[in-house]
């Protein structure tokens, strides 16, 4: 009496799923001790064929590769399954956040102007990361010697924040409300600036770009 085909198929499935790589038919045959009326090679091949059929329409498939058989995840599922290993999203640095904020609120703005306001030089990695994310683009050149690029935000930037226009960006006046609504925001809020001159309630227009430092 040889082994029930369903049981044989189950053992083979378990072996393929438990093994660390592809399993050859020889290695499958070695699972059955000689004294227990082991299945023949034909039995094993038949069981593999049935198993392959069983997995139709499932998320996994039986695949024959050079060194044997393996059960693998169907590639259609890769978009979901790949996310198992995706790292946590990184965070923007303070420099990136402030640069983005200045471009958003003071656009169009040059690198030099951003450096003036922040008081430190701006690494080109920062502008590049924002350009690559497609949140920022070069909108022109300032008509001064050196023709520095003017940066502005993109449609993708508005879409990300679910805004229709730049006018919908929250204003500095709202910052007190944020303080009150959510005092546990993980940011070190500085006390509201006494003088918010120039920025008014609406996002700054291009011409105001250099106002902020000026008003001090």
């Amino acid at each position: 009496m040889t082994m029930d085909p369903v049981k044989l198929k189950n053992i083979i499935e378990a072996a393929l799923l438990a093994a660390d790589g592809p399993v050859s038919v020889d290695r499958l045959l070695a699972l059955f001790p000689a004294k227990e009326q082991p299945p023949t090679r034909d039995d094993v091949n038949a069981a593999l064929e049935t198993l392959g059929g069983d997995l139709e329409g499932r998320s996994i498939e039986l695949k024959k590769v050079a060194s044997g058989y393996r059960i693998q995840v169907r590639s259609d599922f890769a978009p979901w399954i790949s996310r198992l290993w995706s790292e946590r999203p990184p965070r923007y640095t303070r420099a990136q956040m402030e640069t983005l904020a200045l471009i958003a609120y003071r656009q169009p703005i040059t690198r030099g102007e951003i450096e003036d306001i922040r008081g430190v030089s701006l690494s080109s990695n920062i502008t590049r990361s924002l350009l690559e994310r497609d949140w920022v683009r070069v909108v022109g050149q300032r008509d001064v010697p050196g023709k520095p690029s003017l940066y502005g935000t993109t449609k993708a930037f508005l879409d990300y924040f679910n805004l229709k226009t730049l006018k919908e960006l929250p204003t500095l006046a709202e910052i007190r409300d944020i303080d009150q609504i959510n005092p546990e925001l993980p940011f070190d809020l500085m006390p509201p600036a006494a003088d918010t001159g120039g920025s008014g309630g609406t996002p700054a227009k291009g011409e105001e770009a250099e106002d902020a430092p000026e008003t001090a």
Partner: protein
Amino acid sequence: MNEQATEQQAQSEMPFAVVQGAPVTELPKDLYIPPDALEIFLEAFEGPLDLLLYMIKRQNLEILDIPISEITRQYVEYIRLMKTLRLELAAEYLVMAAMLAEIKSRMLLPRPVESEDEEDDPRAELIRRLQEYERYKQASEDIDRLQRMERDIFPTHAELTERVVTRKLPDIAVQELLIAFKEVLARAEMYNHHHIQRETLSVRERMSNMLSTLSADNFTDIADLLDPKEGRLGVVVTFLAILELLRETLIVLQQSEPYGPIHVKTAA
């Protein structure tokens, strides 16, 4: 014959054990240990409590009512035998022998008849410790019998051959943007307070300007770059811009003789 069977079994189960060959002529009858299995025997115990538990079970005795003088006699017999065989004996075994002897001597003292509560039983502490050890010994055997990975159950794995690499990008809320803006403005303000006069010419801007006016083919006298009309601050900014451009190897500086004029051109 019995002994032989045991020995064989012991060996077949623990072929790695070292068997002590020293002949022992006198064996206590109730020990049931063939002499050359003694070392294996000792290794099989986790300490004096374990050995005592074994002796109690072996004779179908009850922990709660140990015949202390008999157990002590047997225990000491084991210890003596181990010593005879020069087996290395952990100190705990000797401490236990002393404890047993003490309990035994206290048992011989007359006790007040009316106070039969357990605190007065000289065996109480030993019995507590034996029970306590026994329950965790039992628990360890129970855990050992649980279904466990690598022995009873096996993890499954199906390879995903084509991973879609998704690089995650930072998520930010629009409020964070506003807060960053507010912070940078607040800092700019402090910065300006500390500098009595705002720096109207940025080094970086001057660097760009300089790069666009300098040539790679002709040297320019550095004195021509420093415009006194810009005031001291302007000269300093220009000078800083030259140093920064030099550091970034965007320009080349040349001085043909000591104290001679310094010339500058853009790097090729």
